[in-house]
């Protein structure tokens, strides 16, 4: 399991916000937790996969994409805030996320 500290959520949030700001060429001040990834930012589903790879490396996570896919089917991610929540669960539970 990944190590969760008091700063982890802030760290994840900063990475997610910066990632979408850069990829969607949007000023970071226009991104909020309730921002819709597709309709507000014209983002795409591949971005979620790219972020997973970033977090896998950063937190040395052992988690398979198919596991995440099973979780996402039950818990769709549409907003930046939902994405941050999901990344936090990934860090905390890794492959066990599917049992939540």
């Amino acid at each position, binding site marked *: 399991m990944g190590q969760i500290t008091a700063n982890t959520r802030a760290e994840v949030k900063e990475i997610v916000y910066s990632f979408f700001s*850069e*990829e*969607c*060429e949007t000023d970071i001040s226009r991104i909020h937790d309730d921002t819709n990834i597709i309709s507000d930012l*014209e*983002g*795409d589903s591949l971005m979620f996969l790219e972020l997973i790879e970033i977090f896998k490396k950063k937190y040395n996570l052992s988690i398979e994409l198919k596991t995440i896919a099973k979780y996402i089917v039950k818990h769709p991610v549409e907003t930046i805030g939902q994405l941050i929540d999901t990344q936090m669960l990934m860090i905390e539970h890794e492959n066990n996320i599917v049992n939540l």
Partner: protein
Amino acid sequence: MSNKVVITGMNMITSLGLDLRSGWENMVAGKNGVKRITLFDPVGLQTQVAAQVPDTFEEYAAGHVKKRMAEQTTRVTKMGYVCAKDAVQQAAIDFESFNRSRCAVILGVVSTANSSAEKGTTPKNTILKSMSNAMSAWISLEYKLRGPNFTVTSACASSAYALGIAYDRIISGAADLVITGGADSIINREEIEGFNELYALSVNPDPEKACCPFSRDRDGFVVGEGAGIMILESEASALRRKAKIFAELAGYAMTSEAYNIMAPMKDGQGISETLEAALQHAGVSPVEVDYINAHGTSTTLNDKYETMAIKKVFGERAYKIPVSSTKSMIGHTVGAAGVIEAVVTVMSLVNDIVTPTIHLDIPDPELDLDFVPGRSRKHVIRCALSNSFAFGGHNATLVFKKYV
């Protein structure tokens, strides 16, 4: 009120310019867009020349294409997308005033050219870059259009077929507006080698002479690249929003020769049948036709058979109709050729100017029509045809009329 299909916007990107105005002006001036290949090193190839879109395209596209999309699309897809954005802007379309489910995107695309000539080619995004429906999808996404978006593939007639299908959507009442056209490039080592194997390309190394449709010395086509877009709209829709109307697409024909995978039917039989079918579909008599934008590839058979077909359909009048080849200036843009040449045809109609067939210094004695050699000329045009013929026996003729 009759509901005609009208053209309310158009644009082209070719070796002679990145927009309609510059491309048209260079064509009227009879400029040559063929140069030695620089997109990749052509060493070892029989063919050394092509009509490349100016290098400034990358910079131009950067102003239109967002970072994310840029990474997921090829240069050719960007050409189609950028061309469409400029055409929509020129047509002053506010999609908020349209029912988006009645707006379609129908393009003619052979491939997205995700070839070795594609700069920065990596395994990443291979599928998104290669899918031949990418161009129509990106345009649909840009304007949130909810009508059908798809791609037609019929080789060198692809975008002419797209225009025909777009016409049908509108005339049948299924659509109010269709963004149609296409983009293509085969300027890469693999495809040039392949066409060289078929003896289809010119091997003349002189860019000032290689592409010479209807001339005695023609030895094959010269590859080009580019994009063309037409905004087709129902007359009622265009009038409702007080749009500028360039011309009417009065009808068309698409036929299949079912004869040979490469060669056209002997004596241009398939071509003449296509011309006749298009005139009939448009309700136009041969005496009304004042200009023909030829397929005019600079290949031995096409130019001979296209000439024979025009003589068969128009009789003695064939000698009085200017017939010119846009490809003499911008090469063969393959899947995009149909729409680019349709755009040139409409510009000819609008301006009463016929663009020339350049490099026609030594005529072929067998080909004795008025091919408008060397220089454009003023010529009143009521109705004009644009021809496209393709490997596989795909033929298309589009009929344009002045809008009255």
